[in-house]
């Protein structure tokens, strides 16, 4: 029929016309980054699990001390100098003059005090509460912060009395307009590197106060601009810092961010830092394939390409067999591999519980032989090569080889050896009541949203089941919330995890894996008083060599207990905080600094 034919021709033409629209490319002073997941918040007091959060914070806010280029020694940044007194219990910073916030107000000691006070007072459960609490062995950093936050306990007190008590302690004191004093709860060797992270961001009090209203609840304590125990809705999505970029827009719905160069930027310690990219657009593009195609077509300048998809971008044989990174996509550069603050490990729980909280009847992991057997059944080399596509390096402990204190000479308590695993299990089975003739069931769990965990769990279960030594393992996928609940409530004996550190200093991981109150050790009921003691000693050590020695001792003590299976320390390319990134060759000026938390855009420009 003529009509039908006409219709079909017209629609075909329309289709072609519509499909033929070329991709939108960005002008040379604009950088477009396809990120895997956009920011959740841009308030520095929130503990963050998103790359985009920290990346925004690093360019919009600044700190008292920071890093010069690729160097990893902190230098005075917003401060012009500092002094450590009282054996490291007190730090006095002198501030530079004439620096302005994005809203036009001046940077002074009051602003510094405000920034750290709000970090403690807001006390967000995701966040930095008592300012890096690292376990009961080292309760908090700022004086009085731990008492205010009681981070791991219950019974939060956000009354005005509690606020006044904390403020009276004087953790942060204004000496004069350009001098500020920090009082710590105890000597803390990592203080400077900690405040050099986003957690030490200096926020404009004028901006925060002007958008703040007093709490309606009369029982709730506050200081001007900060309500105790409550997130600041404005500062979650808006920012006013001193940094080289301003936060132009942050769209909550699409998680897209636009940064604009700050025309009034003070220039950094040398006075010479001037952003060349006027606009930075960071847009959340959830689909890996879209990001890759955008990168290829040139419509984005940087794209997150996961290590699982890395062979779309680099040559597989050259990388796996020769260790050389060779891009197979034209016009693209893949900087790396670089060490990355992420550790993959497996965790064994010596005190398994039932859902009602009572201890489970069958506790195989209480026996060190069982733990050693499981650790010997994980083929970590295979996992590093084939699950992480070679972007993970062997590690002797829960630290990345690039971190201070890492010691390659520390011995692991196990080796991949299935014969040994079988022997140990048969032996332990005799005492624990399981064997090939009377097998017992055990469940390994993993996060359903993390396929790499599934691969590892499946490998371990398959290896152990093949041994036929009396343990029958089943693997279960749990939703993220159930997965978290499962290991937090200690319902499971063996689980696979990754952990990311917000700071390059080893303290968070030393505490998490080594001390009885540490984040991971807690839920495995690991308690070795010797380890606790060593941790406290290294925490307080101000001499780096002494600290390194103590750290090595601590690591060996923990490894001898075989509580953890160290699968690997992630390496990646680009500047990952969570997602590795690939750059187009037209993007210049990139350098890798392990302390950076995402890109530092003033360093970049486009050809």
């Amino acid at each position: 029929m003529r009509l039908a034919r006409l219709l079909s021709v017209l629609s075909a033409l329309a289709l072609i016309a519509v499909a033929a629209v070329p991709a939108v490319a960005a002008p040379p002073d604009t950088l477009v980054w396809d990120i895997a997941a956009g920011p959740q918040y841009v308030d520095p007091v929130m503990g963050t699990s998103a790359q985009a959060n920290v990346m925004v914070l690093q360019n919009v806010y600044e700190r008292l001390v920071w890093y010069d280029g690729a160097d990893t020694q902190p230098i005075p940044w917003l401060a012009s100098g500092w002094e450590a007194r009282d054996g490291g219990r007190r730090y006095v910073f002198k501030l530079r003059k004439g620096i302005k916030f994005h809203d036009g107000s001046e940077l002074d000691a009051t602003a510094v005090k405000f920034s750290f006070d709000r970090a403690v007072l807001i006390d967000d459960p995701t966040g930095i509460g008592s300012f890096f609490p690292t376990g009961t062995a080292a309760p908090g950093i700022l004086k009085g912060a731990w008492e205010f936050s009681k981070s791991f306990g219950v019974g939060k007190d956000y009354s005005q009395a509690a606020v006044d008590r904390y403020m009276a302690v004087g953790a942060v004191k204004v000496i004069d307009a350009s001098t500020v004093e920090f009082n710590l709860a105890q000597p803390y060797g990592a203080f400077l590197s900690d405040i050099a992270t986003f957690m030490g961001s200096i926020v404009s009090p004028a901006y925060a106060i002007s958008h703040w209203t007093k709490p309606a609840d009369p029982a709730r304590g506050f200081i001007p601009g900060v309500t105790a125990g409550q997130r600041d809705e404005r500062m979650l999505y808006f920012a006013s810092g001193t940094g080289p970029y301003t936060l132009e827009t942050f769209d909550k719905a699409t998680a897209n961010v636009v940064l604009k160069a700050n025309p009034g930027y003070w220039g950094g310690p040398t006075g010479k830092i001037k952003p060349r990219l006027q606009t930075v657009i960071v847009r959340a593009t959830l689909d890996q394939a879209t990001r890759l195609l955008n990168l290829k077509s040139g419509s984005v300048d940087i794209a997150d390409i996961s290590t699982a998809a890395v062979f779309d971008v680099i040559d597989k044989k050259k990388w796996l067999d020769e260790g050389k990174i060779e891009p197979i996509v034209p016009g693209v550069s893949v900087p790396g591999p670089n060490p990355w603050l992420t550790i993959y490990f497996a965790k064994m729980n010596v005190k398994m519980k039932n859902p009602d909280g009572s201890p489970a009847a069958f506790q195989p992991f209480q026996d060190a032989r069982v733990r050693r057997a499981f650790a010997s059944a994980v083929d970590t080399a295979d996992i590093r090569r084939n699950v992480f596509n070679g972007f993970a390096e062997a590690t002797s402990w829960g630290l990345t080889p690039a971190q201070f204190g890492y010691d390659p000479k520390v011995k692991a308590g196990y080796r991949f050896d299935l014969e040994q695993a079988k022997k140990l299990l048969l032996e332990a089975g005799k005492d624990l009541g399981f064997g090939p003739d009377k097998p017992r069931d055990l469940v390994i769990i993993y996060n359903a949203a993390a396929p790499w965990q599934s691969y590892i769990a499946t490998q371990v279960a398959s290896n152990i089941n093949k041994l036929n030594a009396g343990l029958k393992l089943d693997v279960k996928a749990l939703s993220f919330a159930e997965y978290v609940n499962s290991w937090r409530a200690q319902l499971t004996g063996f689980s696979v995890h990754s952990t990311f550190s917000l700071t390059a200093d080893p303290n968070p991981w030393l505490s998490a894996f080594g001390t009885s109150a540490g984040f991971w050790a807690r839920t495995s009921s690991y308690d070795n008083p010797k380890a606790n003691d060593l941790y406290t000693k290294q925490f307080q050590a101000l001499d780096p060599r002494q600290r390194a020695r103590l750290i090595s001792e601590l690591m060996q003590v923990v490894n001898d207990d075989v509580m953890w299976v160290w699968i690997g320390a992630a390496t990646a390319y680009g500047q990952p905080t969570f997602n590795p990134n690939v750059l187009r060759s037209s993007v210049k000026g990139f350098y890798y600094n392990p302390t950076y938390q995402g890109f530092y855009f003033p360093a970049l420009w486009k050809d």
Partner: protein
Amino acid sequence: MGAPTAKIGAAVRRLWQSKLAAGALAVFLAIALAGAVAPLLIPRSVVRDVTFAAKLTPPSGRHWFGTDDYGRDVFSLVFLAAHLDLRASLSVVATALVIGILLGALAGFVKRLDEPLMRITDVFLSIPSLVLAMAIASVLGRSIENLSIALVFVSWPIYCRLMRGQVLTEKEKPYVRALATLGVGRARLIVRHIVPNTLFPVVARAPADVGLVLITLAALSYIGFGPGPYVPEWGSLVAAGQAYIFQAPWLVMFPGAAIFLTSLSLNLLGDWARDVFDPRLRS
């Protein structure tokens, strides 16, 4: 009238004559047979073992359908899934048929039950089948068994209505009245005469329905009701493969093709069955 056996005989002859339907039957039986023997021939370890070094390899002599991200043989997975999917779809339709036929007959014979039963089927039919199945399964929990239960709830109303319609028409037919006047008992009338003649058009819908249930089951699995990576199911295989679709399209192609072929053969069989057993629908 005509004895049911004669009808079946005629049907078989028609099948032979219609090459398309015969071909469809052959394909379906082949898949069903493969699915039936799969668990016997394929060791369980195929599903649980990982061989990372062999992951995501394209189809080859060793792995006819390639390997997935665990290094597992996709050919084995697809046929193990055939077992699960076919068994589930067939049992869902069989159960729905039985329930629908019983209730439909009840509605047709017992006037007082007719109206309420029809209202109930109205309610169920006013919700799209996928949506209703989703709602039931989301409350029951994610497993193939619960999905099957949900799909039974979704499928029985059609059979019920059909059966009722058929019974009502058959009841009024002259031969029934004649037999009744002759003194044949009500029960005997129903069992020996009415029911056998009304069953065929209703059952004729079953093959196509199995295809529909299969696709719905796979679709529900795909959007998230799937049984996880250790229980092969066509829909969840496609969902799992989608993450690697650009690197390894075979992960999505083969399970999808399996669903398509099975459903196509069932639909062709269903068309033929309706042609033969349900004269009203003949064009």
